[in-house]
């Protein structure tokens, strides 16, 4: 009986927050990024629009920070929602039609994701006797609904991190968002998916098939998103698909974490590593792209050069954060055996080719891009610089297990080569593409931000803006009723005629007598 009692949320007292080992890196990352991005956003937003922007930005940031330290199901769900829902206001800040559509898609998918999350939380809570995430996760393996729980969680996480086929959600949400906010979304918000993997995905709850399937999905997302990103036409969209691609890698780690406990520990390391690395690097790219786009002449060149650092980090070049992250991931995958993990392990370096191509495309697009709306002030450089610095250092100096192997092997030629050749392949391929300009031109912009989700946009547009009003239909029955009235009234009239009526009565008397005598 007592076991159920703790399931009942007892007021705000039930909300538990804890700064535990898992929370620390995410807390640091989220707090830092939301602050710095906020500074950028503050500086680049016209004063009269600041209120509107920060009305959404601040709750979202609070939710983001909160979700990192949330220790129980309710507070996790609360902070998750608090972070995700107001982001709609950031995406639609420009109030353009496209942004509204993007907002609608974002909101729809987010809400679905939350619903899945809630269902999973409810099911996990029911199996055990506690609402604490750690215990719920531990107990989930024993739940009769373990597979369903995992499926629900994966669904929710996939929506958050933009795994295929939902990759479009990320480019959609970055494309129309002001740079500062986009930086927070891309750097921090998406990483909540990674946090959820660690906090919620139970180890050893489902079979190896699941592990393989999730890993494959991650790998496909990594490649697929990269391909789509290359074919888009705005820097933000490229960055969005890049995020999806990178999060595909995280999803591979998530898949690994579903395996036995040993692999889980390593996988969690990889996830944290990727979260730190990608969060900082992507934020740096978003902010940098904004700075570069509004810079001129030499400043622009300098900015583009500085932008190369996070770009290289994403590719996983030696001495960058990406190098650390990939090492951690490889270590985790290496632990698993079987055809799929081994295949994933073998193909993993190739993802770097895609990322490299994305980065090349990004630079091309930034250079092509003309300055958009005049800003009240030029984008500040300081926040960007801070993020750049953090990108360069954070993963290397973070006191944890997951960067030890990378630090140890950073100078080994083998690893250097492994980290470098994909970029070289990508550059080679890029040059090769120049030989077929017609094809390139045709491919340019084949993918619009949001890809398959755009169809959903159209669908949602109906619901959102001007839903068809359902009018009360004029009563078509009235004519029929009228006819009925005529018939009935006429019948009654005939019945009332004296001769008919009195004859009927006499006959009735005869019938009654007959009945009485029967």
């Amino acid at each position, binding site marked *: 009986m007592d076991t159920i009692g703790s399931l009942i949320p007892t007021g705000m007292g039930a909300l538990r927050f804890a700064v535990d080992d898992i929370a620390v890196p995410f807390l640091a990352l989220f707090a830092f990024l939301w602050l710095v991005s906020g500074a950028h956003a503050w500086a680049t937003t016209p004063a009269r629009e600041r209120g509107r922007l920060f009305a959404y930005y601040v709750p979202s940031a609070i939710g983001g920070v909160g979700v990192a330290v949330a220790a129980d199901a309710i507070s996790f769900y609360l902070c998750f929602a608090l972070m995700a829902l107001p982001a709609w206001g950031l995406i639609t800040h420009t109030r353009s039609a496209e942004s509204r559509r993007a907002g609608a898609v974002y909101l729809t998918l987010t809400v679905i994701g939350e619903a899945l999350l809630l269902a999973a939380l409810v099911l996990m809570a029911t199996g055990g006797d506690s609402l604490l995430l750690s215990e719920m996760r531990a107990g989930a393996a024993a739940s009769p609904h373990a597979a369903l729980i995992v499926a629900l969680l994966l669904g929710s996480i996939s929506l958050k991190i933009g795994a295929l086929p939902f990759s479009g959600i990320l480019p959609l949400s970055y494309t129309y968002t002001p740079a500062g906010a986009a930086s927070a979304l891309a750097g921090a918000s998406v990483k909540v998916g990674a946090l959820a993997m660690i906090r919620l995905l139970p180890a050893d709850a489902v079979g190896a098939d699941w592990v393989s399937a999730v890993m494959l999905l991650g790998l496909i997302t990594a490649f697929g998103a990269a391909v789509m990103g290359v074919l888009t036409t705005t820097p933000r969209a490229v960055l969005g698909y890049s995020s999806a691609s990178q999060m595909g890698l995280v999803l591979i780690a998530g898949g690994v974490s579903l395996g036995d406990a040993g692999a889980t520990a390593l996988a969690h390391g990889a996830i944290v590593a990727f979260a730190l690395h990608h969060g900082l690097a992507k934020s740096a790219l978003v902010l940098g792209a904004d700075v570069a786009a509004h810079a001129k002449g030499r400043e622009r060149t300098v900015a583009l050069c500085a932008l190369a650092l996070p770009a290289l980090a994403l590719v996983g070049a030696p001495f960058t954060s990406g190098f650390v992250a990939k090492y951690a991931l490889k270590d985790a995958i290496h632990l698993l055996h079987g055809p799929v993990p081994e295949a994933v392990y073998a193909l993993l370096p190739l993802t770097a080719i895609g990322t490299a191509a994305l980065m090349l495309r990004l630079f091309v697009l930034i250079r092509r891009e003309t300055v958009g709306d005049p800003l009240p002030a030029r984008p500040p450089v300081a926040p960007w610089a801070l993020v750049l610095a953090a990108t360069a250092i954070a993963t290397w100096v973070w006191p944890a297990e997951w960067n030890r192997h990378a630090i140890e092997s950073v100078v080994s030629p083998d690893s250097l080569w492994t980290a470098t050749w994909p970029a070289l392949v990508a550059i080679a391929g890029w040059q090769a593409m120049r030989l077929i300009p017609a094809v390139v031109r045709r491919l340019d912009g084949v993918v619009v931000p949001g890809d398959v989700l755009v169809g959903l946009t159209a669908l949602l547009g109906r619901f959102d803006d001007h839903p068809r009003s359902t009018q009360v239909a004029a009563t078509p029955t009235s004519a029929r009723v009228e006819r009925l009235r005529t018939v009935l009234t006429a019948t009654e*009239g005939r019945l*009332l*005629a*004296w*001769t*008919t009526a*009195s*004859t009927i009565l*006499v006959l009735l008397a005869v019938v009654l007598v007959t009945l009485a005598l029967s």
Partner: protein
Amino acid sequence: MTSYLIYVAGGALLYALGTYGLLARRHLIHKVISANLMGSGVFLILIGLGNRAEGGPDPVPQAMVLTGIVVTVALTALGLAIIKRYYSATGLTNLDDEPPAGERP
């Protein structure tokens, strides 16, 4: 064969005749007369059946008939008064709730 049956049979015939008249005749006064026929029929039946008693006729049916006659007279008077008033108000001699017999489709 017993004699009371003659009265009774006559009464029954009168009653049936009156019934037909009340049902089918359109003229209002015809209807009143028909109803009186019915009444007479019932009275005949009553008297006739009362004569089955041994040792002289049963007085109860006779008393009933006397009362019945008064009631019938009252009804007839009322009927005539209404018909008269109705005629002077509408000029009609029937209830006008159905087309005349000859014009029925």
